[in-house]
């Protein structure tokens, strides 16, 4: 697979890997049948993402995109974070092989689900 050095770097040394106990919001996309699952944990204070962690099952691109996304949104407000797209993630990684653009580049979607999860809990309180 023709991956950029940046993709390989994030695959080898994923940033913000792990879980956040009692996270403010958790979002997951994908399924084991298609071979990619990305799960994002958020810790949110005053609408700012103070911490973010992820776990990913999938190919090199799936791991690298989730890792990159966590770097891009950490410290951002929810409004800012929601502006980050899958395309932005791919661009920050120096591009992805064409076959990976759709199936393995879903980290921004997982973030949106996590933020929705957070907002749902907020409303419920």
């Amino acid at each position, binding site marked *: *697979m023709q*991956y950029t050095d940046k993709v*390989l770097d994030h*695959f*080898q040394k*994923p940033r913000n*890997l792990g*879980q956040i*106990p009692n996270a403010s919001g*958790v979002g*997951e996309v994908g399924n*084991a*049948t*298609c*071979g*990619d*699952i*990305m*799960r994002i944990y958020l810790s949110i204070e005053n609408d700012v993402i103070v911490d973010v962690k992820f*776990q*990913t*099952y*999938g*190919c*090199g691109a*799936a*791991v690298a995109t989730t890792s990159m996304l966590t770097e891009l949104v950490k410290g951002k407000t929810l409004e800012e974070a929601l502006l980050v797209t899958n395309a932005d993630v791919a661009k920050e990684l120096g591009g992805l092989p064409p*076959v990976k653009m759709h*199936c*393995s580049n879903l980290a921004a979607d997982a973030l949106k689900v996590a933020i929705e999860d957070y907002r749902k809990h907020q409303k419920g309180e």
Partner: protein
Amino acid sequence: MKSIYMDHAATTPVDPRVLEAMLPTLTQVYGNASSVHHIGQEARKLVEEAREKVATALNAKPGEIYFTAGGTEADNLAVLGVAEALKEKKGRHVITTGIEHHAIFDSFLWLKENGYEVTEVPVDEYGRVNPLDVEKAIRSDTILVSIMHANNEIGTIQPIAEIGAITRAKGVYFHVDAVQTVGHIPVDVQSMNIDLLSLAAHKFYGPKGVGALFLRRGVRIKQHLHGGAQERGLRPGTENVPGIVGMGKAIEIAIATMREEAEKERALRDKLIAGLLQISDVRLNGHPTERLPGNVNVSISYIEGESILLSLDLQGICASSGSACTSGSLEPSHVLLNIGLDHPTAHGSLRLTLGRQNTMDEVDYVLNVLPEIVQRLRQMSPIWPANLIQEK
């Protein structure tokens, strides 16, 4: 970093003796084998010597060997050639399995889309065909049975001689894709009652871009390329003399060393399998004993094949997988699904295929680094049970 190549089912390096045999055909004996002059006739002589070597290896006659540009072409020529030749005379029913290489699988797909009826005989959990199922599937309008000798992914060896006895008794042509077996385990078109057989040089330390079809004398097929009289008109086009000469040399060496190579590979294979099964939640794919000497295929739960390959590659180890990410489509390997694996198990497959240059030290190295890789990827994985428990 040292490279450890364990992907011999994909392709093999050219043997230096093969290269040595090929080199003069590029610069000295460069003639067109169809030319009347002496440089052409020298090339012709080399081509015919290679044909004899290939024929000898299969227990066939030189006149039954047709050179092609590889295994895929030989497979297409066999399947489509028989189908087109017999559709008016005998029928449009063909029989195969669901675990064939894509060169066969997709040729049958084409037949299905073009007015032929295809029966896929089942395989068991190890990927083995029951010859009785082939017998039951044969009808009066059946024109071809095509079953691979050994599977390229899981290494399972089929009971080819038993199936050949049935097709011969029923008077149905039998094609065998032997791309993974020629030069590795015995292939005998007489005792196995094979009518057509495909092989590719680069799977037994010959060059890429050259293969052959064995076509039993008297079996008529329809050609697909139109051109000259080369290969008795069945496969026109100027002969690939360097490739053909390389294939002849490669098959000669492979047959001469087959027994000892197979024995060595089996020892490496069995150690590798035993070591891999020490890791938790790892299963062997394919048959435990009816298996290619160099084939190892396991599924490692909770992680995905391509990330295993990338991690191995970063340690110098070349391997392959049947995950969707490596198949170039959204689906994992049809072979793994057809032996009953669910999608995640197929996605987590790892194939290591051994060859001449592999050593016990290399096997030890792989067994040393792989558990760490598996552990690292599992710790990342949201479907690893330890991670599931922590969540709630």
